[in-house]
């Protein structure tokens, strides 16, 4: 992605309670801080009930429809492995997906009614997509708080935006500085871990 008059479409997906909407909100704040127009929309009927959550962010000179249509997402950010796979068709052909390999297994799978996909990452690669997969949940847990997962994911996308990574990092830190200053340092670390995870994964691939 490069900065141009074109609208940038980023689709963030996950499950209720993972912080998908907050992460997209911060990403929107970063884009707005650079003077872009932006619209953000969610499909999250029952977001606190463990259901599917997607957040669409479109930014550019002027944004009309808030919805990203299938095949037009420039970047897919999956907070959960099967959810990334569920929304893979939203990507432009050949575009990139950043995904957490961490799994959230719903009761319908535990009850034996449905199967969880064996290897969502391989399935996405087989579709011809550029996939960067890493364990954001484990990275967050290493820092001592699973709720840092969304900051890890924000760090992961930071080098794939049409603006400098620092703009996004500053937006993350500014949000915590005003609400929970004691968490700023932790989030800085989480952000850098996410950034490095993608870089390392890209080298290994």
């Amino acid at each position, binding site marked *: 992605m490069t900065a141009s008059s074109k609208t940038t479409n980023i689709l963030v997906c996950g*499950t*209720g309670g993972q912080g998908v909407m907050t992460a997209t*909100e911060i990403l*929107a*704040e970063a884009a*707005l801080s650079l003077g872009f*127009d*932006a*619209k*953000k*929309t*969610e*499909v*999250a*009927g*029952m977001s*606190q*009930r*463990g*259901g*599917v959550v997607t957040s669409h962010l479109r930014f550019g000179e002027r*944004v*009309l*429809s*808030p*919805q990203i*249509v*299938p*095949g037009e997402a420039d970047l897919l950010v999956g907070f959960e492995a*099967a*959810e990334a*796979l*569920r929304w*893979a*068709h*939203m*990507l*432009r*052909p050949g575009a990139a997906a950043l995904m957490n390999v961490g799994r959230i*297994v*719903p*009761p*319908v*799978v*535990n*009850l*034996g*009614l*449905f*199967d*969880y*996909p064996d290897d969502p990452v391989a*399935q996405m690669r087989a*579709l*011809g*997509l550029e996939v960067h997969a890493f364990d954001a949940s484990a990275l967050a847990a290493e820092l001592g708080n*699973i709720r840092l997962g969304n900051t890890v994911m924000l760090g992961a996308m930071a080098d794939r935006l049409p603006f400098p990574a620092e703009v996004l990092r500053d937006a993350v830190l500014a949000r915590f500085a005003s609400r929970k200053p004691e968490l700023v340092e932790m989030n800085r670390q989480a952000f850098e871990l996410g950034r490095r995870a993608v870089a390392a994964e890209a080298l290994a691939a």
Partner: protein
Amino acid sequence: MGAPLPAPAASRLFLSGNEAVARAVWEAGCKVAAAYPGTPSTEILEELARYPDLYAEWSVNEKVALEVALGASMVGARAFCAMKHVGLNVAADALMTLTVTGTEGGLVIAVADDVGMSSSQNEQDSRFWGRFAHLPVLEPADAQEAYGMTKAAFELSERHHCAVILRLTTRICHVKGRVEVGERVAAEPAGFVKDARRWVMVPGNAKPRLPLMFEREAALAAEAETSPLNVLSDGPDTALGFIASGPAFMHVREAFPDAPVLKLGLSCPLPLQQIRALADRVRHLVVVEETEPLLETELKAAGIACHGKDILPRIGELAPDVLRPAVARLLGNAPPVPAHAPEQPVFPRPPTMCVACPHLGVYYTLSQMRNVIISGDIGCYTLGAGHPWNALDTCISMGASMGMALGMDKGRGEADAGKKVVAVIGDSTFLHMGMQGLLDIAWNRGNVTVLLLDNRAVGMTGGQDNPGSGRDIHGEEAPRVDFARLCEALGVKKERIRVVDPYQLPVLFKALREETKIEEPSVIITDRPCVLIDHYQPAPSYRVEEERCTGCGNCVEVGCPAIHVTRRETAVKPSGKEVELAFVRIETTACTGCGLCLQPCAPEAIVHAAPEAPLQFQRKQ
């Protein structure tokens, strides 16, 4: 509450449609704002409650909310109420007569249609109410317009002395965009003017007012022709012309940037002359509206040829990927072939009940009962219809579980003679529209057992307060309904009313078994708070001792999302019968120690994650 001061005028804020409406209501100097929570409208009042200088309330239902707003308008104050689409069905009785009286202070009714049905029982088009009640309808297309049209709605209301319907959809309410805000302007209410011919709608007073309603409608139709709310976005490609309203306008503009589009912000009454002018210039006129062919039918009745629902779906959202192929076919072109990856089949992820949700105990218990018909209602507990419980048999409208249960009891024949009829309803739904139904059950001596799930919150919409929570919209202490005494006052015998802890499965099971046996109205009130509200206190978490787990899977049947199956095996019993075993673990970081899962665990494999904490619950015998 110590809410932050509103952002200063001329700020450019990133607001959802709901937040934008709230800001505009405050700026318009509105004095009274009322609502009952309902997706996707809920955040409007949540947001308004944070603004100074106005009175905001959660009302017990939408009809009361509209009546509160109408009363404020009668004394000359600007007033506002908000609701989801089905809420206006509840408020319709007041609506259909307030259109006859007209209004004094500006009165705006925001109604949010759940187009696409993210969290509703139907998909209805609230724009019909404008036609039915002869009231103007405004349809914003994004958050900035939601802000602007809310302010315009108050002015329109005062110019024509009638309520104005502000029609929102999910794609307005929950979409954030940049909004430039302005100054607050307030006016002192003029005061109530006693005038029976105006406000007392008996036939003798109402009849002379009916012509006024139609005169007003004609004046509004004239205003629609020149209203700045109706805007032509011109384009060079006259093979196509569009009439669009609401978020559909943005989708049209996105998909067909070169075609002229007449955007109807004031869509009822229609600006027919403007529409005719566009129709004369283009080869195909296409009406893009969510969801019913309402404008389209009116255009056709006026003799304007157009396309609409003959080429577009009648249900769901009309996003660009829906519009492009439909219009391509209309023009005789091949629809665009998608180049992207095909959609991958992935298991469904239906919303679940929360970890430690008190409803888990109720539905686990109901799922263990035989020969029972369960009349359900609207709230989180509607999820009881899903797996693993499959223990809710109906869901229609707010409070309907009561009346339907009575009807099932009175209407049953031989086929259902031996069955128990149970109704399940939450605290807020009961207070919204359920207690009249219970009154009917008690009065008419129905053989129904009512499970009143009191979790002290409007759970599904995010845990708002209600008259059963003991707090008001600001979280401040307020009178709390005593459900047991209320049920008694409605006519249920005191000895047929029980209050039980839904975390105590054997107690709940026994109460249900006993009350369903006795052939008279009974009420079982469960009294555990929603786990999502601030006052919820988690308990020490549990884990599974792997070597003791026998794979019986009983705990999985509770339906708690913190219980995960680690492996499955097929075993052969001494009888030769094959059984599926499911060995489990508990996600200890998610578990909040309700203790429901350990009660059906026969091998006592579920223990506290921290070993010193004592077990508090009885086990299933």
